[in-house]
């Protein structure tokens, strides 16, 4: 699975960090998205998909299923 991040759209809601905590975190300075793992393992894919659909600013775009 691959995904792109549109950093300038991020508002630091942190939904990704609860949906997929092994893949996403929040920057200490402003709460915006930090990618911990750019190539999530198959057992993380459902969580990443959940993060993408729940992100309020549509920051996470799945590019490869």
């Amino acid at each position, binding site marked *: 699975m691959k995904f792109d991040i549109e950093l300038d*759209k991020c*508002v*630091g*809601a*942190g*939904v990704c*960090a*609860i949906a997929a*905590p092994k893949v996403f*975190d*929040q*920057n*200490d*300075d*402003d*709460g*915006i998205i930090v990618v911990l793992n750019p190539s999530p393992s198959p057992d993380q894919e459902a969580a990443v998909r*959940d993060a993408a*659909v*729940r992100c*309020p*600013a*549509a920051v996470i775009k799945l590019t490869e299923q």
Partner: protein
Amino acid sequence: MISLPQTTPPQAQESLPANRCPFDPDRRYEELRADEPVPRVSTPAGFDVWLVTRYEDARAVLGDAETFSSVDASSSHLMGDKDNLGAPPPPGVMLRHDGDSHSRLRLRLAREFMVKRVAKLEPFIRRLVCDHIDRLAEREGPVDLYRAFSLPVPALVISEILGVPEEDRDEFERATASQVDLSLSLEERQAAAIESAGFFVRLVQSKIENPGDDLISRLILEHTELPLDAAELQGIALLLLAAGHDTTANMITLSTYALLQHPEQAAKLQDAAFQETGVDELIRYLTIVHNGVLRKAVRDTTIGGRIIRAGEHVAVVLESANRDAHFLGDADQLDLDRKSAHLGFGYGPHQCLGQHLARLELRIALPELFRRLRGLRVAVPDEDIAFKNDMVVYGIKELMIDWDEVVA
């Protein structure tokens, strides 16, 4: 770009559906979602809006802040002055700011409410919850859960975050409780609002003179190109209180009542799954931010097949979207085990800033109430319970509870 012919929107034939019953949205929403998903309705503030009732359309509006401005957000159609629509947003009140003006405020506050930061408050919240249940144990029931527990716990949490000094917290709690106390007259509540506004002016001034380890002091001390001024800091403090405290209080009270009505769900409160998904399902099912979240189109667009002209208002009905069968099967059922991309915290760049704090407070408060108050029950007949149909945030005005014993 295709230019659309100008037309005047039709005069609303219906009023905003606002009769909840008691956990479900107004019954008319189910029909509207099926037959007329974007109807024109009249509102309590005296102007007409387009209502957005479907989940997909709700996401489309709230997710497109370039087309839909928050200048009149989020409740001007419920309690605003229609002659003041489009007025510049008050300083610091970020829910009415758009674009860069919004991001400047939002990103400075996001770090204060991020997941790992909020998690550090857990011991403090746990102690508050424990102390307030201990205080219930000293009293004879029935007791109003809303005043004795649901309101003070979140009020004390937000005062800790804002850095309200210990000795001022009683005054802070009284002033904030009075503002939402419907047994007081409008004048008394307005006086309480003015008193608490004065309270924030003094609070910000004291932090400027004598900064500490709290949110307002950090905003003051931060070195940045665009520092926040005192008026913005007061706006931020007021907004954080208003948005973050009565909402959680209403969720605690309404969730308690809903769980007492759904004992098979209440049985799951002590499970790990509740920690994971249960709170979000309660937030979806109850959707207390109701009667529409207001946006204003700044250019012509189309939503749900309906042409929306620049300058027209759209109210996104979260409680309807969250029950849309196209979004979630069995959406009218409460099921604490399920996960969903619900809109209970809104959607788009203005989605609830304090959502992780709200989740944590509910995750601690609800299981503890049900675990420690053995035999917890409502002490009045269901028909005597008054719901807040008429208010911006839904809830129960007073919930008299009783119990058999309080365990440690």
